């Protein structure tokens, strides 16, 4: 295999192979040690991870650009396939939504009147930081995503992350230029939620599948499939009322929730910061928030 002159390789070969074997074992042990050190939350490992991610952001930012256009192309091809059916479906949906619009306007007026009667003080609007997902959702072993905004843009650990459709996850790592969001489907994700219709509290626990489990519901909870689930705000880390998903299965494998977020098209996400109320004016009221959520 070697392209070196024979005389040299005759001398160097045994030494080289010994060195290589030693290097191999050393690297193996290092990888193992790193794994254990990571488990022990060593600051240096954490800092290195953040620094590497920050350094790679520009590269990933460029490389991840074509993904969106590939998705769009595939989507438009599959749409072309059934244009007529899609039109019919949208017409029916538009009719239904128009009826809902009437209902919603009525309820909004009623809500406003009741809020006036009860002197209800609405919670401050959050500051919103938007970013683009520059990594995929991680695969079967971990579910997290890198986003191209970081502490420079005001992202902090623990911020709630949403996409257009609903709750995505929580920020677990922040660098200067990036942040990592632990998705609600990850093994390590535990989100306090409440079943919206029955107000039964529970914990949404991920297991790396696309259908996280709903745990620790009260004994007498009267839930059924189709019930929407929202964040409860319990514990004070996350805001309450962010739509999470709907209950799709109640059975032997536990109560499963289908998240509203389309993981296959997770492109832009928003970080909701409720504590920046002091800086951001609340639209419509002319008041600045107090800076606390409770």
């Amino acid at each position, binding site marked *: *295999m*070697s392209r070196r002159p024979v005389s040299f390789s005759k001398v160097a070969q045994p030494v080289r192979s010994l060195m*290589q074997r030693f*290097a*191999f074992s050393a*690297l*193996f042990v*290092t*990888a*193992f*040690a*790193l*794994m254990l*050190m*990571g*488990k022990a939350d060593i600051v240096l*490992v954490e800092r*290195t*991870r953040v620094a*590497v*991610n920050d350094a*790679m952001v520009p*590269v*990933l930012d460029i*490389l*991840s650009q*074509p*993904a*969106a*256009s*590939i*998705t769009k192309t*595939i*989507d438009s091809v599959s749409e072309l396939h059934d244009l007529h059916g899609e039109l019919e479906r949208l017409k029916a949906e538009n009719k239904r939504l128009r009826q809902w619009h009437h209902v919603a306007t009525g309820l909004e007026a009623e809500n406003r009147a009741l809020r006036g009667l009860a002197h209800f003080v609405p919670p401050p609007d959050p500051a919103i930081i938007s970013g683009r*997902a*520059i*990594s*995929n*959702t*991680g*695969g*079967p*072993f*971990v579910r*997290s995503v*890198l986003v191209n905004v970081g502490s420079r843009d005001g992202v902090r650990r623990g911020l709630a992350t949403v996409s257009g459709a609903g709750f995505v996850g929580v920020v677990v*790592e922040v660098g200067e230029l990036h942040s*990592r969001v*632990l998705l609600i489907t990850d*093994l*390590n994700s535990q989100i306090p939620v409440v079943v919206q219709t029955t107000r039964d509290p529970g914990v949404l626990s991920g*297991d*790396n*599948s*696309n259908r996280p489990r709903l745990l620790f519901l009260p004994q007498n909870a009267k839930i059924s499939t189709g019930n929407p689930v929202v964040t409860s705000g319990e514990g004070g880390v996350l805001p309450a009322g962010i739509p999470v998903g709907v209950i799709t299965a109640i059975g032997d494998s536990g109560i499963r929730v289908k998240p509203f977020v389309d*993981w*296959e*098209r*997770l*492109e832009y996400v928003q970080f909701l910061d409720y504590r920046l109320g002091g800086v951001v004016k609340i639209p419509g009221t002319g008041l600045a928030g107090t800076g606390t959520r409770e």
Partner: protein
Amino acid sequence: MKSDVLQHLDLWARAIMPTITTLLLALLDVIPIGVPAISDVSPLFTMMAIFYWAVYRPDLVPPFVVFLIGLLQDILLGNPTGLFALVLLGVLGATLSQRMAFVGKPFVFAWLGFAVISAAAFFTMWLLTCVLTTQIVLTTDVFFQYGLTTCCFPVAAWLFVRIHRHLVR
């Protein structure tokens, strides 16, 4: 003299081609590829690259480079640090010890070899993740990713053969 330098540069550039392809594929493993059906679970191209180069040009895949690429991928994907580095080193080691069984044989042997070695790699990854998280990780997606990785190997190998012939020699 000048042509000598150029020749060295040329040789050097050819020698690092396997590293470059592996690194690029490691990044491809990380970025969203935008194909809806496999966006959750995409094939692990890095594993294919390391297997191919370890079989056909073992002198050009230094363990240190494999370790660093694995580490980079761990950090970018949010895996426990060192998990993928360990698994890739295992793939390299296993392939290097068995490579004579694939060299000069029909491609099917290499494919079969890759299927066996990557199965062991996926099992190790699963086991280590279970131990590190102290939870049983669902196996459906692991099987799916393994299947996808094995099925995509011929396509990747076709590309590696082209690179091998024209850019490495």
